[in-house]
């Protein structure tokens, strides 16, 4: 069930240390906050990709992360996934500190990145089998084929990834994420490279994840779709968080930044 955001603030936030934090401590203690970022900054060389990003996401929420190209969406998702570490600030996943308790955090997250995390010479089944072995999950042929069936790749199960198109690789990467059965799922442009049936596939998966109580943060450029499927939105601009609140109530300014006016 989608939950409303705590302390829903619908105005643009600019480096405010506001009331949200007071609520958050209690909320964290009650285990309601799935993902929290506090003052997160991340730099690449001399360029700051994330500047003082702070937000909280309650459990079982689907959140849309919007922003233009280069605004820091991928960097944010990677930081939350502990693939990279913040230069400043803290990230907590389900209450755990992302650096101090990194392995425990990694057990609870799954990341869909622009890189597929796949082995090109291996087949679809083999790629999933590897993950299943490491995670100790069911790796029977039937189970893996069922997973491939779900993402529409069952007929290419024995083909090496090298023969796959970009869209097919994405589908397999999605299957790989589903395999992990994580409580916090981070998706970087899941709709990218997919065909229209693929869009419906992702819609269905999001619905399923929400129903199962997982928390999803999804970076996407499909703003109408995102607004329909997500209860909350985070909007980034040049590395800063300029909006954090309900997806449906996004004010004009944030919507403009996210690019609503221009075609999406």
């Amino acid at each position, binding site marked *: 069930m989608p939950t409303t955001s705590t302390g829903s603030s619908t105005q643009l936030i600019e480096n405010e240390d506001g009331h949200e934090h007071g609520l958050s401590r209690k909320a964290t203690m009650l285990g309601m906050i799935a993902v929290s970022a506090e003052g997160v900054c991340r730099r690449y060389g001399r360029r700051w990709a994330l500047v003082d990003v702070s937000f909280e996401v309650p459990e079982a929420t689907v959140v849309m992360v919007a922003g233009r190209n280069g605004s820091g969406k991928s960097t944010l998702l990677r930081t939350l996934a502990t693939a990279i570490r913040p230069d400043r600030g803290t990230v907590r996943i389900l209450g755990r500190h992302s650096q101090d308790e990194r392995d425990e955090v990694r*057990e609870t997250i799954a990341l869909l990145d622009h890189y597929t995390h796949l082995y090109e010479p291996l087949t679809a089944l083999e790629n999933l089998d590897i993950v299943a072995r490491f995670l100790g999950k069911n790796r029977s042929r039937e189970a893996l084929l069922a997973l491939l069936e779900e993402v529409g790749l069952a007929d290419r199960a024995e083909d090496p990834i090298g023969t796959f198109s970009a869209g097919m690789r994405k589908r397999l990467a999605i299957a790989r994420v589903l395999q992990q059965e994580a409580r916090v799922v981070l998706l970087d442009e899941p709709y990218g490279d997919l065909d229209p049936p693929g869009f419906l596939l992702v819609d269905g998966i999001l619905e399923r994840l929400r129903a199962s109580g997982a928390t999803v943060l999804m970076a996407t450029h499909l703003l109408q779709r995102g607004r329909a499927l997500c209860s909350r939105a985070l909007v980034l601009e040049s590395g800063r968080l300029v909006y954090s609140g309900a997806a449906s109530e996004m004010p004009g300014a944030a919507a403009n930044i996210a690019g609503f006016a221009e075609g999406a």
Partner: protein
Amino acid sequence: MNGILAALRKDLLLTWRGRLQIVAVFAFGAAALLLFSFAIGPDSSALRQHAAGFLWLAMLLASTLSLAESFERELEERALTGLLLLPVSAAVLYYGKAIANLIQLALVGVLLVPVMVILYDAGTLRLLPLLGVIVLGAAGLSAPGTLYAAMTAQARARQALLPLLLFPLVVPVLLAAVKATSLLVLGDPMGQIRPWATLLAAFAVIHLSLCGLLFGRVVDEG
């Protein structure tokens, strides 16, 4: 243990899929042996004397090819990062890769022995000890080699950097393996091979432990 088996299975599967590469590396090693013989000239006793040295030089050069290749697949789609995020411990991934590299190198070494026998007239009947020396030597090359391959695969000028970093480190392997192989080929009346084999084993064990500990820091994307 479970994790290491999974990692090993993954790396052996990748090696098997890329088995054509082993052939190419072997061809490179064989060509090197041929060229080295030209450096000595058609003096059969001198060739026989130095056969062990050239075999291991060829192995060393061949190792740079196969080690560098071993991380291409891990990095092209960031598969290694993907595994680290599951989470899988970096040490486990290191050992899987190091053992797979060891097997690949040892295989090349074994394939080069007949070439050595033919070109240098340097054979031995003590095949099992020879296999042992090749395996231990391959382990010594593979242990630090796997870590440095992971490092240099992500740096610029990677072709030159891997040999530059690896070669000084594996001097003991070269010395001991050449010595041991030489004793096998030329005769070992005083039974001196033991200490050299022990040195090889010690080197491999020390570096496998040390590099296993340090691998996590090397692949951390930070």
